[in-house]
């Protein structure tokens, strides 16, 4: 269940049942909880069968893009001509997101098991778990679990006596948000700057070390063992047709009960904020929420009656993203909050594309100027113009990421900008 709070609307079966239970990190306890039973099942199945179950479950990528996981796996060559690789993306660093951290630190064996099953499904011989550098305490926990799993024969040669070999290596990043973009991750893993590259070739054709590669998010892989054990129909009892299953919601900002909750997809966003998270702290009113992590369009208090699904959030004009709502109360200085967000993207731009390198920095500078009372009304037009320049013109979507919160704040809180500008032309 959720951590540090839990709620009746939660379904804790798939990911979060043992959140908060330190003993679940140990292999012997984890096995008492039924751990690695799904792996034992998987070694008796072939790649196509495993992929089929995950395809049928409708599991979608939890890293933000929501691409169907089984379909992604099916893009890998069916008849390998050399090594395949799986990369687990644990480079969680989107402002607002801290869900993968909870998986790493509470249920590391669940992630390892998910990685191995996925590796079998894509015929990978080696799994690399790329963890963000800052997550030292959680990397330590993961490392201990990996060593335990190796010693017990769950990883390595001849897994569970099946004749199947698979290695797993934990690899630590060093503070680059862009290493969470899948091609950036691959550039970083092989020993380079974490610079994204143009696709095609897609990772399934040419990924790390020039070989077919699949990159999956931590939460995606952690959902796989239960799907394999219980079946796709069981998984589909939660969520909607297009957004099946459960999702970790990591909620932050001005909430009574911030934290991570595992919820069936589809609960109205309003209920997540007001019921699950106990509403706005100190009895204040809600001003805005950035619902899916800092790269999504903000919603106002009157726009919260949308279903918390991929399609529902899109209809509301925003995005599910990583399901990481950042909630702002009525006293929030929107310009300042968006300036903080823009500074993040300016800081994390890899610098390859001119629009992104220059544009994100200018957005931050202009917002700062407005915030300090030195803005002009023309600055608002310049910001809109920058939104145009930053959309769809770059190798990756980092530049687009700053546009969603910025443009929505200009559209929905223009009065806040104008009040700070004070009519100066």
């Amino acid at each position, binding site marked *: 269940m959720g951590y540090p709070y839990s709620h009746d609307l939660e379904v804790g079966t798939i990911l979060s049942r043992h959140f908060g239970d330190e003993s679940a990190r140990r292999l012997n306890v984890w096995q008492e909880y039924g751990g690695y039973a799904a792996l034992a099942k998987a070694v008796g199945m072939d790649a196509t069968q495993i992929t089929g179950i995950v395809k049928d479950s409708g599991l979608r990528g939890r890293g933000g893009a929501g691409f169907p996981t089984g379909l992604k796996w099916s893009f890998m060559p069916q008849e390998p001509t050399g090594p395949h690789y799986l990369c687990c993306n644990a480079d969680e660093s989107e402002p607002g997101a801290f869900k993968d951290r909870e998986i790493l630190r509470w249920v590391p064996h669940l992630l390892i098991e998910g990685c191995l099953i996925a590796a079998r499904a894509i015929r990978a011989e080696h799994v690399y*778990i790329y963890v963000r550098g800052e997550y030292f305490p959680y990397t330590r926990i993961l490392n201990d679990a990996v*060593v335990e799993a190796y010693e017990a024969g769950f990883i390595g040669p001849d897994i569970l006596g099946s004749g199947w070999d698979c290695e797993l290596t934990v690899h630590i990043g060093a503070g680059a948000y862009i290493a969470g973009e899948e091609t950036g991750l691959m550039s970083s893993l092989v020993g380079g700057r974490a610079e994204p590259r143009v696709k095609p070739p897609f990772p399934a054709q040419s990924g790390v070390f020039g070989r077919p590669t699949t990159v999956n998010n931590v939460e995606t892989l952690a959902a796989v063992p239960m799907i394999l054990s219980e079946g796709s129909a069981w998984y589909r009892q939660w969520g909607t047709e297009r957004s099946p299953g459960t999702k970790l919601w990591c909620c932050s900002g001005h909430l009574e009960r911030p934290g991570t909750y595992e919820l069936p997809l589809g609960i109205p966003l309003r209920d997540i904020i007001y019921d699950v998270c106990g509403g706005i702290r100190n009895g204040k009113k809600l001003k805005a929420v950035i619902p899916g992590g800092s790269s999504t369009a903000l919603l106002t208090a009157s726009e919260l009656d949308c279903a918390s699904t991929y399609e529902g959030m899109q209809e509301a004009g925003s995005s599910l993203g990583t399901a990481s709502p950042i909630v702002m109360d009525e006293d929030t200085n929107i310009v300042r909050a968006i300036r903080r967000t823009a500074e993040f993207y300016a800081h994390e731009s890899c610098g390859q594309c001119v629009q992104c390198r220059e544009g994100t920095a200018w957005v931050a500078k202009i917002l700062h100027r407005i915030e300090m009372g030195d803005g002009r009304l023309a600055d608002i037009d310049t910001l809109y113009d920058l939104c145009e320049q930053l959309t769809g013109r770059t190798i990756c979507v980092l530049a687009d990421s700053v546009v969603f919160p910025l443009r929505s704040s200009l559209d929905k809180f223009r009065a806040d900008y104008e009040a700070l500008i004070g009519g100066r032309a």
Partner: protein
Amino acid sequence: MTRKIHPAVVSAQPFQVANLRPTDRLFEDEEGRDRLEKAISRYPDKRAALLPMLAYAQERNGWVSPESMQQVAEALDLTPAYVNSVATFYTMYNKHPTGRHMIQVCTCVACHLCGGEEVFEAFLEATGTVPGAMSEDGKYVVMEAECLGACGFATAVQVNDRYFENVTPETVGEVLARLEQDGGE
């Protein structure tokens, strides 16, 4: 003394730590050679051991010096210019020696909303430092950090390889006292 490290996790050792084991020659003692060999063994191309070895240099020395980069370059058959271009891309590799306790206060959007800037100011005041500069006794350096990934526990503060959560200006003293008490471990 060589700590036994499983090859699967040799590329994921915490590298911002208080207790340093300085060395002028990274790969000339048993530990250094062990780390290098194990890391290389995990990848089909030894260039992939570059980030792990830069991290190792920092774990030993507290920063990644030009000499360390040179040694890493030699060990992995890379040019020093290439190693430098990679090392400078990543913010967590310190390019200069830093304080024994590197205090990073998250002031990104979620922590900002919950008072991250006030916590940052309180750390500066309590340590008598200015942002990013080491205190005179070499104990502290305080800086702002972008999102640390603990947004539900604002304000999040990272000190070396540890996290402190729900920090407020009022609890800054407690955090510093714990650092003193634990000696950074």
